[in-house]
């Protein structure tokens, strides 16, 4: 596992319904590692409060990235499964934190950095997906880069609205409904000077719509950047078996391969546990059946090669004989 930072909660802000902004600092107040705009922390969520497994949740950093003495995250509370929702309880845990509480997290990781050869940056966010884009906008304003931000949120439920307005002024557009968004995007995406890069973060359906509009208007893939979060809940999947290190383990419906391996006493490096970070990659061994890839990490070529899978989300597909079985090496 990667090194962890020890952090202490220095403030909490619940001004926006359902969203909590938390400020974290080193216990001795020392400077924290700086980060690239759009970076996130992976926060360790302990067992307890209905959570039977420890988890690690990624939260985008919204504050100052240069010489920071604090880290700021904003977290939307997702209803847990016990409450009839799909959340695993990580965000509910964040909403229960109090000033002075201690936690551990990875140092900032970047998977959504501004492209420095871009001559202009178009940022399109929805809901809590504004968080990495706020970090981008802060950096663009500081360095005098050309940027434009479009933020769609349910009226009264927008995060960092005043801060965005103050930072971006008339470069920021706020929208409150899907129809307005579609109309606005069709115009804005058609009018960007060559050299612009597009960055989008929000619910999966929203990002799909942004990418579809961009693609229709001729945007090449190299200019479109996504920060997946709030990964749509996956279905529990069919049961299968896995052969590993001379043993055969059962993977029931609703249990991930990663969990099954852990329950079998095997250790697999992992972080996000939702198919995003790429840590829990396991190699496929000879004799394996086909894989149902459900991650957001592997590219098409790697998937087609059938050489590996992400244990946290991907599963076995039934082979021609109906048997669903994977052979893996750790």
């Amino acid at each position, binding site marked *: 596992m990667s090194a962890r930072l020890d952090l202490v909660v220095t403030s909490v802000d619940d001004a926006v319904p359902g969203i909590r902004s938390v400020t974290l600092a080193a216990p001795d107040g020392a400077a924290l590692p700086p980060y690239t705009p759009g970076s996130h922390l992976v926060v360790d969520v302990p067992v307890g409060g209905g959570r039977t497994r420890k988890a690690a949740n990624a939260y985008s950093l919204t504050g100052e990235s240069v010489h920071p003495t604090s880290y700021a995250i904003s977290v939307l509370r997702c209803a847990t499964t016990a409450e009839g929702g799909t959340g695993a309880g990580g965000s509910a845990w964040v909403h229960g934190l109090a000033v002075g509480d201690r936690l551990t997290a990875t140092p900032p990781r970047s998977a959504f950095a501004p492209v420095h*050869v*871009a*001559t202009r940056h178009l940022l399109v966010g929805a809901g809590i997906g504004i968080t990495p884009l706020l970090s981008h906008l802060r950096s663009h304003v500081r360095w005098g880069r050309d940027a434009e931000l479009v933020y769609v949120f349910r009226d009264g439920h927008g995060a960092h609205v005043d801060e965005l307005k103050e930072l971006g002024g008339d470069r920021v557009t706020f929208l409150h409904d899907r129809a307005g968004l579609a109309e606005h995007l069709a115009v804005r*995406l*058609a*009018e*960007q*000077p*060559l*050299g*612009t890069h*597009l960055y989008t973060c929000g619910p999966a359906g929203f990002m799909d719509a942004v990418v579809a509009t961009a*693609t229709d*208007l*001729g*945007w*090449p*893939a*190299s*200019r479109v950047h996504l920060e997946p979060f709030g990964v749509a809940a996956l279905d529990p999947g069919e049961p299968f078996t896995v052969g590993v290190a001379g043993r055969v383990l059962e993977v029931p419906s609703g249990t991930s391969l990663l969990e099954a391996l852990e329950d079998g006493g095997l250790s697999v490096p992992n972080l996000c546990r939702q198919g995003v970070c790429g840590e829990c990659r396991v190699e496929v061994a000879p004799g394996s059946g086909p894989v149902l890839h459900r991650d957001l990490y592997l590219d098409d070529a790697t998937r087609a090669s059938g050489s590996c899978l992400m244990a946290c989300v991907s599963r076995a597909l039934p082979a021609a004989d109906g048997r669903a079985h994977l052979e893996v090496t750790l």
Partner: protein
Amino acid sequence: MVGMNQTSVPRWAWDETAPGAAPDPRGRTFTLLVLPGAAAVADRWAEAVAGRAVRRHEAADVPTAVAALHADLATARVGHRVLVAGTARECLAVRAAGVRAGLADDEMTFGVVSTADRAVWCVHCDATTVAPVAIDDVVACTGCARSLLVYPHVSRRTGEHLGFMVDAEQPGTAAEQPGTAGVAA
């Protein structure tokens, strides 16, 4: 020797049997740059993107093509694609101008009619030699007359191949190179 598929030299710049490229059908607008002898490729492409906004420029040489490219890019919006039909040397040179102007690799398509000529940049004297020479072969530098190995690397910024003295490790050869006075200073 490195495998050619692991080098910075695009396949179309050395392999004349490479399958011909086609315009990206997702492009909204196009610039079509046609260098001498490449009209057939350009005509085929023009047909493939018929009905779209295509600006076709017949260019006598690379500087003319680059000037036309710059003029089009000044007002281009994201969604624009650039199609270049010409020799590999011309395509690499226009690609370099495109890269410097901020175009991405997936916004440029190249149709190559010949891979015979290369531009080779001399690391010793900074001169560029254009000659019919293959990668890994040797060419005399027009600047300093050193025998340059044409290394399988092309600069994205200039479109020129990396050339360096092939016999640099043979004792005495450097002093015998003509035209090198003052080069090392």
